[in-house]
């Protein structure tokens, strides 16, 4: 990596160097926003949580334990804020389905765009997505978190374990039960990988 590491930057932030904080924000705002958005799916809330996360990073910089990994610490802060937020909103699925037209989604990869020509197909895709999202809201939160971090964020099991502060085997176990739970929730609606039957 070019330039100082995240941990070096944070140490500089601790001694009052605001530019280092700016560098950290610039480096992590995008991954953090992705992470938070995929956890809670509401752009406004995701934005607020990112803001709050960075603010806490700044205010709690002195509590960062040397030797720890900055990103893990930052994700832990963000995850706790997401959990608080979801507790407030109570139902994840209800939260997730809402869309805000003010925010343009990132352009889909070209591979997806090719299939998107047919409006009927697009509509079905949207419907499936909503059903799956709803089913995701029916499984326990601790399993859902793992599913989101693994499938949507592409994190390694080791990274997830570090953020959650639990053994890797626990993460894999939650993954296992989460996937099965998801499938079961969808099966109840006659929904399979091949389509709605």
């Amino acid at each position, binding site marked *: 990596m070019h330039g100082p590491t995240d941990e070096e930057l944070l140490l500089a932030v601790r001694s009052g160097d605001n530019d280092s904080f700016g560098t950290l924000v610039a480096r992590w705002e995008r991954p953090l926003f*992705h992470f938070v958005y995929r956890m809670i799916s509401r752009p406004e809330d995701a934005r607020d949580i990112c803001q709050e996360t960075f603010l806490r990073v700044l205010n709690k910089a002195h509590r960062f334990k040397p030797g720890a990994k900055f990103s893990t610490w930052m994700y832990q802060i963000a995850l706790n804020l997401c959990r608080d937020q979801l507790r407030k909103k109570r139902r994840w699925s209800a939260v997730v389905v809402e869309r805000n037209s003010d925010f343009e989604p990132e352009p889909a990869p070209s591979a997806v765009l090719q299939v998107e020509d047919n409006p009927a197909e697009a509509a079905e895709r949207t419907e499936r*997505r909503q059903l799956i999202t709803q089913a995701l809201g029916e499984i326990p939160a601790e399993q859902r978190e793992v599913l989101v971090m693994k*499938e949507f964020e592409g994190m390694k099991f080791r990274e997830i374990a570090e953020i959650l502060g639990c053994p890797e*085997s626990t993460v*894999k176990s939650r993954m*296992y039960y989460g996937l099965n739970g998801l499938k079961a929730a969808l099966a109840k609606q006659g929904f399979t990988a091949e389509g709605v039957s």
Partner: protein
Amino acid sequence: MSCVHWKELLVEQLYEELERDKALALEHHLADCAECRHELEQLRQARSLLSEAKPEVPTLPRVVMLRQPTFHRPWMAFAAGFILCALLIGGGIATGVALGPKLGGSQSTTATVLEPLPQDAGNAQAPQVIDGTPVRNDFVSRDELNKALANYGARFDERLQTKGNEILTRVGQQPPEMLLTQDELNDALSIFDRQLENRRRGQIELLVDQLVQTEARLKAQEDALRILVLSGQPGVRPE
């Protein structure tokens, strides 16, 4: 037959995080165990369904860092330096030039720091951002401070000139026997110096005290301060 201990490996296999030797072991087991083969197939289907629900992430809102120079140490030091400097200059004039409000009609620069914070400062509002431009609260830029300082200096020179002329005129009007000898003048000046020094010290101590208190209070309200504000995308007004 219980295959519980294979479940972890199945999950690892699903995400291709399986180490080589474990992968070989699993491969052998799968060849013999229909149950685990079925299990892995189920997991693959579930993963495929899950991947369909992957949310597209909206364009990242920009993060805007708001600087509030009032609350940063380097600026505080600079402000303190300025005040001390102003005090030293101001103290030089026995008549005393009021600080702050008379700074050449420009925005009061020292007053912000000199005036004690209101008691409800803990409820300070977060700085607002409109169209990406921070709304100013009560801080001044370095340029403004320099301008005010230059202005102050010019006015001081002017006053000193006037005062000097006044004293010279008065001295010229005194009968010779009323004039002080050089020694008497030196004594008087050193007494004046001491008084000035004491007064200056008192003011400086008061100011430093105030600065320290201000900083302590600001620390306490850290949470209320939004140093960072995420503004929306271009064109999107943050609430």
